[in-house]
């Protein structure tokens, strides 16, 4: 029953395969761990000022990657833009909003199969 496995040295392949996978990923883990150690040291050595700079997007407060203080109204504008961006690109907008039926709808019919002057309006 196992002759095909034996003939193909299946066990050897499987074991050494697992070995390589573990070896490779342990190497990667070690490299990342090395990062962490260095990161820890760096953080302790550098001033608070610098440290604030390395705070990441998993931060519990609002945090910025840049050094500069961003004007508040610019911040608001960006936030609005992000909000709109998400609405535009991540939500199935087109199928959720519909347009009034009436004179305006004619424009909705520009959608056609030939892609001449067609515009994607629904």
């Amino acid at each position, binding site marked *: 029953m196992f002759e095909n496995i034996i003939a193909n040295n299946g066990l050897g392949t499987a074991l050494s395969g697992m070995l390589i996978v573990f070896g490779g990923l342990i190497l990667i883990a070690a490299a990342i761990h090395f990062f962490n150690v260095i990161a820890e040291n760096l953080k302790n050595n550098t001033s608070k000022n610098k440290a604030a700079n390395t705070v990441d997007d998993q931060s519990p407060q609002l945090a910025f990657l840049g050094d500069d203080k961003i004007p508040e109204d610019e911040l608001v504008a960006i936030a609005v833009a992000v909000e709109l961006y998400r609405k535009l690109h991540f939500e*199935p907008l*087109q*199928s959720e909003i519909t347009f009034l039926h009436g004179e305006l*709808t*004619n424009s909705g*019919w*520009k*959608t*056609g*199969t*030939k*892609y*001449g*002057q*067609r515009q*994607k309006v*629904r």
Partner: protein
Amino acid sequence: MDVIFKIVATTGFANMSWGNLVMMGIGGLAIFLAIVKKYEPLLLLPIGFGVIMGNIPYTAGLPLGVYDEGSVFSMIYKGVTSGLFPPLIFLGIGSLTDFSSLISSPKSVLLGAAAQIGIFGTYLGALLLGFTNAESASIGIIGGADGPTSIFLSSQLAPQLLGPIAIAAYSYMALVPVIQPPLMKLLTNDKERKIRMQPPRLVTKREKILFPIIVAVLASLIAPGALSLVGMLMLGNLLKESGVTERLAKSAGSVLLDVCTILLSFAVGMSTQADVFLTTKSLGIFALGLLSFMIATIGGLLFAKLMNIFLKQKINPLIGAAGVSAVPDSARVVQHFALHYDKDNHLLMHAMAPNVAGVIGSAVAAGVFMAIFR
């Protein structure tokens, strides 16, 4: 000194022919129509520029044109001649098309079928002029008024005629607002033009999702040759209507469609080098193409009138003219024409039904030709 002569001899000025100049003028005309008249600019502009570039003369041996093995443009042209671009374009078109008007008014499908008489009539006409079967089929399909379908069938059956057929198809599609109104005037009376139609019923999301699947299956079963075109068109539509794959539909209907359109149009334009394009065959193709559009328009109009004999709720025969497809231009032509006689009679969305049905009809016709002649 020798080198200078060699260089000067390679400049285009040294090799320019009258034919090239004529073609460059035609290319300029296409660009003019695209920009100033806004006739199908997405197609005519790159085609026109391609026609100009394709007629820049150069010494043989330089790998520059679409017919030169190994040149960049020959690689792009391969996307046309292999038939790859048209289905990809149909994928994008499907993801932009709304079939609800057709779903709510299934009898309009017949108008989309009737207009295909232009294809088969012109096929006969082309045979009459001495073209072969495969060539005649490719020429006839111009009357389908769908660029990708015409190019696809030509690439499969008569690649040597691809250039003129593509140019003729796109030219007449751009000229639909000029070609159709006189025929509409001739074949309808005032009373018919004023027929108002009931607003179409509401279509559910489920119907919209099932529609592309059913159409793809039925059309491919009855004419398997239509599989590549109808399949991709309906895949795009399914991606759009399913509501769960919007990012795929968006990408297919934007960049993929645009890039394929640019490359296909430009390469088709480049393929019109005067020495291969300016032939009596091309003239014949242009004449037959115009005939094809006219027969298709007449077929749609008359069939609508025929249907009215049997229908209790009359349809406005003008929408039959939209059966040629050329989406959405012919539907718009119907709208404007009808408004002229009754300023409150909006036929646009009624005309969209035969309009998109015509696309399916032409693809089926192309499938039939492919099955017979290949």
